[in-house]
């Protein structure tokens, strides 16, 4: 008996850690080079948004100031990239670089807030529908069907044109029409989870519905929700830019990327930089979020695409 213990002690084996699936997923994610590079790019964009005023003070060009004398050619056309305006000017003689930096604020803000609202509503309603069942599920399931059947962009445009464009309206419209897909995913998972033994165990310990839903069931649907959330952010950013492009973004003169691209449309024959730089900013942002989201999906989904 003692000998056996000594043998065990003699091997300086690493202690066996219990690692949660979450920790394992984060580990896998950190080994994913593409995902980490994308995360770096995202952080750079965040820094650009935070320090947008620095861009303005270094160049000496406030985002909404129109330099009609030095920022426009004698014909009144935008000026190309030069020593004063590094990325050129727009149709009103404003500095495109500074406006891109300020535009990042809008994209990121809407991307994060609208996604958060969408996921919060979707998770709560999906949990309720899947777990409570009965009449609650019937009503919510039909509601999900309705929201998913409506042509989102059309109704969004119609709504914004009725209420008038603003940041709040954009966020609300996106949140209101996007929660349903989150709710559907969560509901599907919860429908099978609620039959499992751990729910019965919790119930026999005297836990109520609310407690079981949020303390016992919720952690089990977290992985798909995290994956969906990361992939939803770029979709939301594109939606916001699309609304702006259609003239329903933020009221001018606020700088945002979709609006900049929209106003560049009449100048693409003469001023390529006017569409190119805001376009690149938007594309790099969505691409970085998508590549990162792709990595998150591979890291969190233990089954799919392990071959990568």
């Amino acid at each position: 008996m003692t000998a056996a213990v000594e043998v065990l002690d003699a091997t300086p084996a690493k202690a066996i850690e219990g690692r949660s699936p979450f920790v394992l997923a984060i580990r896998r994610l950190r080994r994913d080079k593409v995902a980490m590079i994308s995360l770096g790019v995202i952080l750079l964009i965040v820094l650009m948004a935070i320090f947008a005023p620095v861009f303005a003070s270094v160049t000496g060009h406030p985002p909404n100031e129109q330099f009609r004398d030095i920022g426009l050619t004698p014909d009144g056309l935008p000026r190309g990239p030069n020593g004063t305006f590094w990325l050129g000017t727009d149709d009103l003689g404003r500095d495109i670089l500074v406006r891109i930096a300020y535009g990042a604020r809008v994209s990121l803000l809407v991307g994060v807030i609208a996604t958060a609202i969408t996921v919060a509503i979707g998770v709560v309603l999906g949990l309720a529908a899947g777990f409570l069942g009965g009449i609650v599920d019937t009503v919510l399931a039909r509601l999900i069907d309705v929201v998913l059947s409506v042509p989102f962009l059309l109704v969004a445009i119609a709504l914004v044109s009725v209420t008038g464009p603003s940041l709040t309206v954009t966020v609300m419209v996106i949140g209101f029409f996007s929660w349903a897909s989150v709710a559907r995913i969560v509901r599907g998972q919860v429908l099978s989870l609620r039959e499992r033994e751990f729910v019965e165990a919790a119930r026999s310990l005297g836990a109520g519905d609310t407690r079981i839903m949020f303390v016992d069931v919720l952690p089990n649907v977290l992985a798909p929700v995290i994956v969906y959330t990361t992939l939803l952010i770029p979709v939301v950013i594109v939606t916001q830019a699309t609304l702006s492009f259609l003239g329903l973004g933020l009221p001018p003169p606020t700088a945002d990327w979709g609006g900049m691209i929209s106003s560049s449309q009449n100048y693409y024959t003469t001023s390529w930089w006017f569409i190119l730089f805001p376009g690149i900013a938007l594309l790099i942002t969505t691409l970085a979020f998508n590549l990162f989201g792709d990595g998150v999906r591979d890291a969190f989904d233990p089954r799919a695409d392990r071959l990568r």
Partner: protein
Amino acid sequence: MAVFLLRRLGHGILVLWLITLAVFGLFFVAPSNVAQTLAGRQATPETIALIKHRLGLDLPIWKQYLHFVENAVQGNLGYDYYHQVAVTTIIGQALPVTVSLALGASVLWLLLGVFNGVISAVHPRSLADRGLTLFALFFYSFPSFLLGLLLLYFLYFRLTLAGYTWFPAGGYSPFSQGPVTWLQHMVLPWLALALLLAATYTRLTRGSMLDVLGEDYIRTARSKGIRERRVIVRHGLRSALTPVVTQFGIDLGQLVGGVVVTETVFSLPGLGKTAVTAINQQDLPVIIGIVLFASAAVVVANILVDVVYAVLDPRVRLH
């Protein structure tokens, strides 16, 4: 099967009815000055009241709604405020444009997506796989208006400057007035839509193909000495396509009301652009008609997808 169909149909009608309620509530509660616009600037209050009366806007909202539902059930979606054209006629004129766009684009993105997905799955982790995945994600990340504008810039503007007037700047030319002009007008919008949507299909085909190629019957087929190409296409792809078909149906249904941006960028007078014009003019009957029509397309597509799914995969039981 019949019971399943009836129940799904019932659900579909319920969903459409709820949508009419929601849309009606949203737009008719909002203040509208259509009568004012129509009457002109110097209109007397009497003229405005008369116009309101003619358009039925002076009735209480629930009466307007009942009136609308009563007509809708008989296939009449009302008349537009400005020219008194039937909304069904307006939809009928716009639909061929949207259908041209959706069908052409869907052929392109299916070919592109499925082909790339199969290549990726047959050589997983290879250079080709990584390259195709990146290619797909790159276009997937494009906002559709940006991709459309870039295509216009390079393939219309630059190419025309260089002396090749292959593609017009936009607009629509009906198929009946010459297939070649029709094609020239449609290629760029098709590309803009297909490149964007192919990504989903590459990923879907790759995933499902990888699953299928790991199945026992694929090993059986190989061990029987069947050529690899045949194993992949006949045995593998055939069952791997089921989720692709499902997604395809859902996407097609949503395209009916979802190509707003592509139609706007390329000035195609389809359902999306017509709806946007109607929204700008507060032409409520047209907005409601198109929203309802597009929703119906989604509902019908979803039911069809379920049926096709059961036909393709005999293991699926409908209930």
